[in-house]
């Protein structure tokens, strides 16, 4: 008998149960299960509630850490921020991650265009009215050659390493030769501290807004989210986003996905995300196709835990 014939025979043997039956109340069982689950949820809710940490805003960031805000805004202006050099789907600054010759990130293109200098700094500054000195500084910056702009931003970024926050919320940057940047960044900082930048980053062609791509990218480029995440054990080497603020279980079902980021080669690869996604894609497919994978489908036969599951049945047969 061939292996295929043997399997077909086994399939037929297990297709229908020809042994005994006993009475069973499906609706009663489902009702009791629903009651038990509902009671469990209520008890867990009363005991533990659920987390709800207030979101960070650009305004709160600019007020609590103005040096980090200005530093981030300057990197957005010269395109050296994480978003500025991200690539698709935000811009063409790089080709993004790839696996061998497969460049899915590049192939799917720039679907959510973000010009960090224009969207995060210049356009919000231009929306501020009644400040001719500020608008003149913006005009000076925009009309300067690219080489001059880079010289200003590079010098300013170096100066920001020694910058300090003043009691009134402004930032003091030692040194000079920064061109219009001090005026521009001072204006942007004041605008952000007043709450105007939160709204400006959401501005689009329509009145109603639901897309927070720009403000979230801007805040993620700075330290505002990362600092809070570190304090809440949420950063990558703390098993990252599968955790949740507080002592809640979070998305524990993502443990295997998060696990790969903790080990080499994933933990040190520049293409870690696409590698992890690929591994998880293959494993997910394997999970679905277990009935057809020789070896994996035979493990339950080799390690007979089923004897425990059906011990009453086997005992009855033996008796």
């Amino acid at each position, binding site marked *: 008998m061939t292996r295929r014939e043997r399997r077909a025979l086994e399939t037929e043997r297990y297709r229908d149960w020809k042994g005994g039956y006993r009475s069973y109340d499906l609706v009663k069982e*489902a009702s009791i299960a629903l009651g038990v689950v509902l009671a469990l949820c209520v008890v867990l809710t009363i005991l533990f*509630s659920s*987390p709800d940490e207030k979101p960070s805003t650009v305004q709160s960031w600019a007020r609590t850490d103005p040096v980090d805000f200005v530093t981030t805004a300057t990197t957005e202006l010269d395109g050296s921020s994480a978003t500025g050099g991200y690539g698709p789907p935000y811009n063409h600054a790089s080709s993004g991650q790839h696996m061998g010759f497969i460049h899915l990130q590049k192939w799917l293109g720039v679907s959510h265009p973000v010009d960090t200098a224009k969207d995060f700094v210049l356009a919000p500054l231009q929306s501020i009215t009644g400040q001719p000195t500020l608008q003149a500084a913006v005009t000076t910056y925009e009309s300067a050659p690219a080489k001059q702009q880079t010289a200003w931003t590079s010098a300013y970024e170096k100066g920001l390493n020694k910058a300090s926050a003043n009691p009134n919320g402004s930032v003091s940057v030692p040194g000079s030769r920064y061109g219009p940047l001090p005026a521009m960044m001072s204006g942007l900082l004041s605008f952000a501290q007043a709450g105007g930048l939160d709204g400006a980053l959401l501005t689009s062609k329509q009145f109603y807004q639901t897309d927070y791509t720009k403000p979230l990218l801007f805040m993620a480029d700075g330290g505002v989210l990362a600092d809070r995440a570190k304090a809440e054990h949420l950063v*990558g080497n703390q098993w990252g986003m599968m955790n949740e603020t507080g002592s809640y279980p979070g998305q524990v079902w993502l443990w295997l996905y998060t696990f790969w980021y903790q080990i080499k080669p994933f933990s040190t690869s520049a293409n870690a995300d696409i590698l992890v996604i690929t591994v998880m894609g293959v494993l997910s497919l394997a999970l679905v196709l277990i009935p057809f994978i020789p070896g994996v489908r035979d493990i339950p036969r080799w390690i007979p835990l089923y004897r425990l599951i*059906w011990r009453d049945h086997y005992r009855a047969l033996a008796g």
Partner: protein
Amino acid sequence: MSVVEDRSWTGRLRLRAVGSLPPEKLLPDKQPTYVSSWIYVFGVLSLSCLAVIIGSGTILALKGPGWWHFTGVGHFFNSIHLWSVELFFFFMVVHLWGKYWMAAWRGGRARVWITGAFTFLVAIPCALTGYVSQQNFDAQWISTQAKDAMNSAGIGAFFNLLNFGQMYSYHVLLLPAAVVAIVVAHVLLVRKHGVVPPFELRELAAKAKEPAAATQSAEQETRA
């Protein structure tokens, strides 16, 4: 008259549906004797959690995404929603492991396993879109971290975790509908094929043959 009806699309669909799932299979009042282990309750517990998830989620959706942040009742239902999701995944994973060790795909039940595994896989993005729709710090952090994986695979081009409106739509309609559809298919397949019978044990099979062999030899002796 009935012949004409049976040839209609509706008639054929009804015949096929009733043929595959007669009422006694769809809502059985008896079950095989071997179904007597605690492991069998995790399937119905997972379904119960799904019912609580949908119920609490419906209440949250009726009041809008901001309600639970500033009312005690809203926060209560959000907590119910959270814990029912945690329990759903816990029960579902135990159910999956249990069915794996039973090799529950035997006897032409591969589609039962496949739909069960798909339920688990589709429930993951369903939960993720919930986490990023919370409008709190968790949502901010999780969305900005998870976007890189989505973008690296090109998924971010049409599934933007930073777009609250899009994620909310996925979370309250598209992905729950997918989960429920797959679960319905899974349950109907379970009802159609029945719970997988136990592995046959060689020693018990041999023992079962012994009385038959003894009877046969006794009959031969009588004839002689």
